[in-house]
Structures are given as structure tokens and as C-alpha cells.
């Protein structure tokens, strides 16, 4: 029986990994191209730092990138490393997986008979991105970003832009040794360095994707999904159950609407919406990838914030529609 579960988990792992890898590759390739061609610093620093305009700009940028969360994380990391304002990068990270043409088209294809979902999903996803980005903007960069990213970001921040803590910690305006793989003199000029740095980044992120897929696959064949759906018609429990399912199942945001179609009739409308807005942002598969952007406490904060906002969106929808 155990062997049976393990071998089924292995099949699901392979399916998840092979399906996610192309999207990760797209994301890393875009990040490598951005690193090579975009002049780091001046252009990206012109992006808005405004709490509303920043995330909206990030979301608009995401509309042009038809990748799921696996692809968005490396691009976001590169944006931040190149000195992009935090609200814009966070808006891109949290809104792009929901607000891209493929996701919207798949939602329309899966739920042509439920027009409310066609605007509720992007609207709720955008609202979630705006709120989480605003909450994160209240923190200092040093309190939320991963140390390695913070160091890279420090090279592109004007000395006066950082906090006193960051300046005194030597993260900005110091004579830190430049990472050997990313010499600032060669940044944007040497395609060889871009190829090598991109390869290193892709390997790192692939290893995190492997760990995420392994956890998701194990849980998928251990947790009976019927158990989650048994609470389908209880307003709050159904939302919570579908949120948990979204985190565990870790399916790509461009196809999760088709999956949701499978149990749409068994759960409340709010639970369906919560599944469709939380899954693209937070799931087990991409948990490791987030570790390259956020420190641990910030990851917990982001997870809880998104969870609470998805719950509220689901509850409100149930209140309106039931």
C-alpha cells in the first residue's frame, strides 16, 4: 500500500515538474534578457513607488507575460535586484499570475455560464495584489527581502534611498565585493555572463521547484480530496477547504480554472473564487521559489495576508450570492 502511494506520488511529481519546468524556463529567460538589455537602475527606478500606481504598473507589466507563478518569481527577483520600486515588483508578483491573457481566457473557457467569475477573479486578484503590496511597502526592504537579493539590490539603490539600518549595515553605498557571477562592470554588456548567471539561477530555482513538486505530489496522494469537498456547502468551511486545496494541488494558474470546473457544482461560489485567486499566488510548488525573494518572516506574512484576503473575498462573495 505504501509502495502504491509512493509510486503514484512519483507519477504526479513527474507530471507537475515537467509541466512547470517550461514556465520556469520562460521566467528565467525573461529575467536574463532583462538583465542583459535593460539598463539596471535608472529606468527601473523610474517605475512608480506609489502605493497604488506601483502595483497597478506591476500588474500591467504582468499582463504582457503569459507565465504562471513559477515564471513570475525569477522576473520579480530580477526587477528587485535591478532596483525596481518594491510596490511595482510586488504588484507584478501577485497580480500577474491572475491578470494575464491566458489565465483570463482559460477562466472564460471554463466558466462561460458564470460571467460573474470573469470579472470577479481579476478584480479580486488585483485587489489582493494591491493590499499585499501596500502592506509590504510599510516595511523596510531589509525586513522582507532575502539577504542575497538585498545585497544585489543595494548596488542599484542611491545611497540616500535606504534606511539608516541598511546604510549602517553597509548594504547600500559600501565597498561590498561584487558577486563573482555578476560583476557590475560587465552587467548588461557581456552576453556570456548573462548566459552563465541565467544558468546558475535556473538550476537554483529548478531545485526549489523539485522540492515543492515533491511535497505537493506526496500530499496529493495522501489527502483525500473528497474529505476537503465534504464541507463544500458550509460557507466558511468550504472557503477554507478550497484554499487548502489550492495550496496543496499547486497546479499552474493558466489551467486551474478547468480544475475548478470539476468541483464547481459541489462548493459555494465564494470557495470557488478563493481557490481561483489564492492558488495562483500561494502554493506548495512555488514556496521554495519565494524563498529567493523573501526572508522567512516575510514569507509567513505574505502567506497569511493572502490567505486572509482570499478568505474575506470568499466570504463576501458567499454573502452576496447565497
Amino acid at each position, binding site marked *: 500500500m505504501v509502495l502504491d502511494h509512493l*509510486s503514484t506520488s512519483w*507519477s504526479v511529481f513527474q*507530471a507537475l*515538474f515537467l509541466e512547470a519546468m517550461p514556465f520556469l524556463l520562460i521566467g528565467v529567460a525573461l529575467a536574463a534578457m532583462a538583465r542583459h538589455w535593460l539598463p539596471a537602475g535608472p529606468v527601473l527606478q523610474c517605475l512608480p513607488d506609489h502605493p497604488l500606481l506601483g502595483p497597478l504598473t506591476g500588474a500591467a507589466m504582468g499582463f504582457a507575460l503569459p507565465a504562471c507563478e513559477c515564471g513570475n518569481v525569477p522576473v520579480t527577483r530580477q526587477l528587485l535586484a535591478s532596483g525596481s520600486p518594491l510596490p511595482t515588483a510586488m504588484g507584478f508578483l501577485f497580480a500577474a499570475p491572475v491578470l494575464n491573457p491566458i489565465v483570463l481566457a482559460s477562466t472564460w473557457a471554463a466558466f462561460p455560464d458564470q460571467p460573474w467569475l470573469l470579472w470577479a477573479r481579476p478584480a479580486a486578484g488585483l485587489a489582493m495584489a494591491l493590499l499585499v503590496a501596500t502592506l509590504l511597502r510599510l516595511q523596510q526592504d531589509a525586513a522582507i527581502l532575502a539577504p542575497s537579493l538585498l545585497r544585489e539590490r543595494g548596488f542599484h539603490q542611491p545611497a540616500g534611498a535606504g534606511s539608516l539600518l541598511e546604510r549602517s549595515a553597509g548594504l547600500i553605498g559600501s565597498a561590498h565585493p561584487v558577486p563573482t557571477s555578476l560583476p557590475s562592470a560587465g552587467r548588461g554588456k557581456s552576453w556570456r555572463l548573462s548566459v*552563465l548567471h541565467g*544558468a546558475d539561477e535556473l538550476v537554483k530555482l529548478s531545485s526549489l521547484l523539485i522540492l515543492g513538486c515533491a511535497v505537493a505530489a506526496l500530499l496529493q496522494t495522501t489527502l483525500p*480530496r473528497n474529505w476537503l469537498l465534504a464541507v463544500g456547502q458550509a460557507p466558511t468551511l468550504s472557503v477554507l477547504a478550497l484554499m487548502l486545496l489550492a495550496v496543496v494541488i499547486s497546479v499552474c494558474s493558466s489551467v486551474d480554472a478547468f480544475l475548478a470546473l470539476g*468541483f464547481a457544482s459541489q462548493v459555494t461560489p465564494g470557495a470557488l473564487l478563493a481557490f481561483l485567486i489564492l492558488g495562483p499566488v500561494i502554493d506548495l510548488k512555488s514556496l521554495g521559489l519565494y524563498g529567493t525573494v523573501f526572508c522567512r518572516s516575510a514569507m509567513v506574512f505574505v502567506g497569511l495576508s493572502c490567505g486572509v484576503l482570499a478568505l474575506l473575498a470568499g466570504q463576501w462573495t458567499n454573502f452576496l450570492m447565497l
Partner: protein
Amino acid sequence: MNQPGPPSPWSRIRSAVARWRLPPLALLCCGVTLVQCWSSGRLQLLMAPAFHGLVIGAGLALLVWSVTALVVDQPRRSIPWRAAVLVVCTSLLIVLAPPRGSLSTLARHRPPARLDGLAAGFALPPEQRDLVDWVRLLRGTPQPRLFRGEPIQVEGFVLVTATGERHLAQLLVRCCLADATPVQLAVQWPDDAPPPQQDQWVRVEGEMELLNTSDGMQPVVIAHGVTAIPKPRQPFRT
């Protein structure tokens, strides 16, 4: 002045790994794995055909990227060697251990598939309806007794339910195995032969009947003949 001592075994291993250009090699392994999964037909076991092109494209892109990186690689002070080892090992494992999971185990953990949007089999004669057509018909009609006695010939794998019953099932996949959901029919297997094993692919010939089960009156296939068939190249519907 202090002379630097001889390098430790650990640093010798690390520099050797660096010389081996491990990250590009890891990507090469990954690219070969993706292409091999396509060429061996394994993708058909794992995901819907719409995604095959993405995987093939990614595999070829990885090959180009990794070969380029191997050519231009230069000594670096630090490389993500732990991550690279994990990617290499996983790629090798994927190639060496093809997916042999139990569809029955997978299906037991999933809710029944919803069949909206799939082509209906109303216009088809009973013998030509497949499993999905039959389940869709039976779910869609308020009077399943209308189908009593109709001949049936369907194929699928044997799903052992949580209560131990052996149903005939197929999986419906939108993206990959992670979202597979089952479509199943209860079967009364012939008494003159042992029921087929879990996950065995079979063709069942018989007739549709309504029987009193633990869930009330339910449509059940009364099997007159059961033939073992090979597992299809793509063992699910999309």
C-alpha cells in the same frame, strides 16, 4: 609570512565540481530528460497533449542554453552545486524510473469528474458509446431506467473504491495528472471468472441495468464478457 597550506579535501572536491561545470551539466541533463520524456512517449502518460509542445520546446531550449553555457563557462568562485546535484539526480531518476503509479489509487483521492463541455453521446447507438458518454447520459437523465437493458461495450481500468467495489473507470485530465478526476461505472462482474485486478485495463461487454445498491437504485453494468486489453498510450481522456 604564513604560506597557504595545502588545500583541504573538501575544497579540492569543490574545485573539481566547479571544473566539471556542474550547473550547465545539470541543465543539460534536465533538457535531455524533457526531450527523452517526449521521444519515449512518456508525456502521454503524464499530461494533456496541449502541453507537449511546451515541454519539447523547453527541452530543446535547455539543450541550447546548457551547451552554450558549457562552451562559455569560466572558472567561478561559487556555483550552486547542491542545487545542481539535486537537478542531476532528479533528471536521472525521471529517466530511469518511468511513472508506474496506480490510476486506481489516484482516482480514489479525487472527486468525480464534471463532464460539462464534453461531446455527448446521445446520438450514438448504445454499442458505440464509450464510458464517458454513458456516465454523461446517466447523470444527465432524470430517468436512468430508460436505459435498462441497452447493450453496452466500454473500456477502462479497474478502480477499487474505498468500499472495496470494483468499478470500471477512466480519468479525465485537463492539464496533467495532478488534476485528474475519475469517471466511473459500477459493474457486476461475471460469476464464472475472478474479477480483474486493480488497474487492469479491460473491455466490458454486457447490458445496462438498475440495481439496488447501498446508494439506492443505481445504474450498474451487468458484464457478460470481460476481455483484458493493453494499457492505452494515453491512459486518460482530455
